[in-house]
């Protein structure tokens, strides 16, 4: 089964095609552009390009997997709107995967911190043991994340987290590497398409029902209710 994976939860726009068989996964094609303001322009041509690379047509797709974030809202929605509309047009199921989970899975064995840039001097983060999420996703300042991953006890919400992270990955980990004080996997900055599909593989194989692609915003919209009217007479 040919599966399309999309992720726009980081500055990268990623489109990938993965062949899912009964007992394996084979990456067919992947395109990626790293530009935090260009998801809306880059993603669709990348999808057309990976289909072209594979000599496939849209109607050959069996499912779509999308990274649902967390990530900066505007870019994140590009991937989800594209995935949802394609799924609807093709009548194929869509499956959502936490974008940090794709990085966590790709980081492999060990205890790993995944952090991506949430802007405003914060990161989206989660921690993983052998690819399985044990804490998160949350949004926090890097110093607070560092305290969580290095200090036993205290205000740490999970024993699984404390003092146990061996390495970090994700562009947020690279940006704030000094703060976290653990080695950073510099090759692993953005969610890989194949990892997104691997996480959804069971759902794909059993043809699970299509899922609404609900973004993990983790922050409420900035909006303030207007205060009382300001006088115009002086």
């Amino acid at each position, binding site marked *: 089964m040919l599966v399309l994976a999309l992720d726009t939860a980081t500055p990268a726009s990623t489109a990938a095609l993965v062949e899912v068989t009964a007992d394996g996964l084979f990456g067919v094609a992947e395109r990626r552009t790293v530009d935090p303001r260009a998801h*809306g322009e880059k*993603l*669709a041509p990348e999808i057309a390009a990976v289909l072209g690379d594979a000599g496939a047509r849209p109607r050959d797709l069996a499912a779509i997997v999308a990274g649902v974030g967390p990530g900066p*809202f505007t870019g994140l*929605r590009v991937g989800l*709107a594209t995935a949802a509309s394609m799924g*609807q*047009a093709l009548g194929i199921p869509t499956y959502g995967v936490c974008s940090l989970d794709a990085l966590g899975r790709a980081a492999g064995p060990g205890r790993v911190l995944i952090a991506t840039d949430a802007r405003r001097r914060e990161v989206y983060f989660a921690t993983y043991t052998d690819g399985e999420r044990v804490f998160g996703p949350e949004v926090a300042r890097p110093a607070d994340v560092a305290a969580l991953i290095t200090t036993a006890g205290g205000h740490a919400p999970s024993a699984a987290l404390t003092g146990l992270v061996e390495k970090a990955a994700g562009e947020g980990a690279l940006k704030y590497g000094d703060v976290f004080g653990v080695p950073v996997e510099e090759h692993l900055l953005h969610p890989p398409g194949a990892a997104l599909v691997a996480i959804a593989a069971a759902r794909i194989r059993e043809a699970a029902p299509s899922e609404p692609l609900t973004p993990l915003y983790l922050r409420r919209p900035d*909006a303030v209710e207007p205060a009382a009217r300001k006088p115009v007479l002086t």
Partner: protein
Amino acid sequence: MPDEPLVLGIETSCDETGVGIVRGHTLLADALASSVDQHARFGGVVPEVASRAHLEALVPTMQRALDEAGITLADVDAIAVTSGPGLAGALLVGVAAAKGYALAAEKPIYGVNHLAAHVAVDTLEHGPLPEPAVAMLVSGGHSSLLLVDDLTAGVTPLGATIDDAAGEAFDKVARLLGLGFPGGPIIDRSARDGDPASIAFPRGLTAAKDLAAHRFDFSFSGLKTAVARWVESRERAGEPVPVADVSASFQEAVCDVLTAKAIDACRTSGVKTLVIGGGVAANSRLRVLAEERAAKHGIAVRVPRPQLCTDNGAMVAALGSHLVAAGVAPSRLDLPADSAMGLTAVSVPG
């Protein structure tokens, strides 16, 4: 006619998620979801709230439109989408979805100008538009006078607001009168019981010195402040505020300026057709005053019905249908959402 183009249009430039389907000049479906209620307590549209609502509403709104028209995406000749102007994040949801539909269904895509679409929608109700025409677009987001020589090629801006949009002024005045949001329909209703001549509010950019540089431009910020000052002095004097009279006098000031400048634009351009669109076009006083003044100069006024005046998908589909029929080349898959899109081209060139 079976050979007229079947076009689907997607609109997400502000707080309305719209999907419309037209064949030629015939409207087949116009599905709409609005996030207006979510913005009410903020007194204006919150962009992030609107963007979130668009993402949730798009797929179900698309399904309703397809069901209403009794077609599938495979049947359409093209997909049109508002590329701009509008709220950047909101536009991007519609553009991304339109690309997904176009890619998956292997259809051409047209990124179109929202203002031109407001003009094109009138053809669904009144048939082909005599060209040239003057269009006045008035809503919470825009207040423009346009000269329409050829709807498929390019539209010439004659003037626009230099501060608040007309609909914005309605929202702000409704708020200071404690009437609610959105302000347009509420002020219209409140004004019915008031005297439009009771308070002389200022008419922006109509003095001789302003007309030299801003003949076809609008300004509503001074009017809004004048209303606020007037209301406040009454309150300070401990006198009751005659809400209906304030509403009627404010509305009269807005409609007076809008229609005077629109008729002037028609006469200056030698144009005999005035199209009015945008949410404020639904204002009852604006329609009456425009028709009264236009009749004196032999100018025909065309105002689509209220559902087509406010933002919707049908207007985008209507413009798309014009573009397809005229053989205009589609846009490419990298077409941007352009929050400040100009009118030099009605669609994003391919």
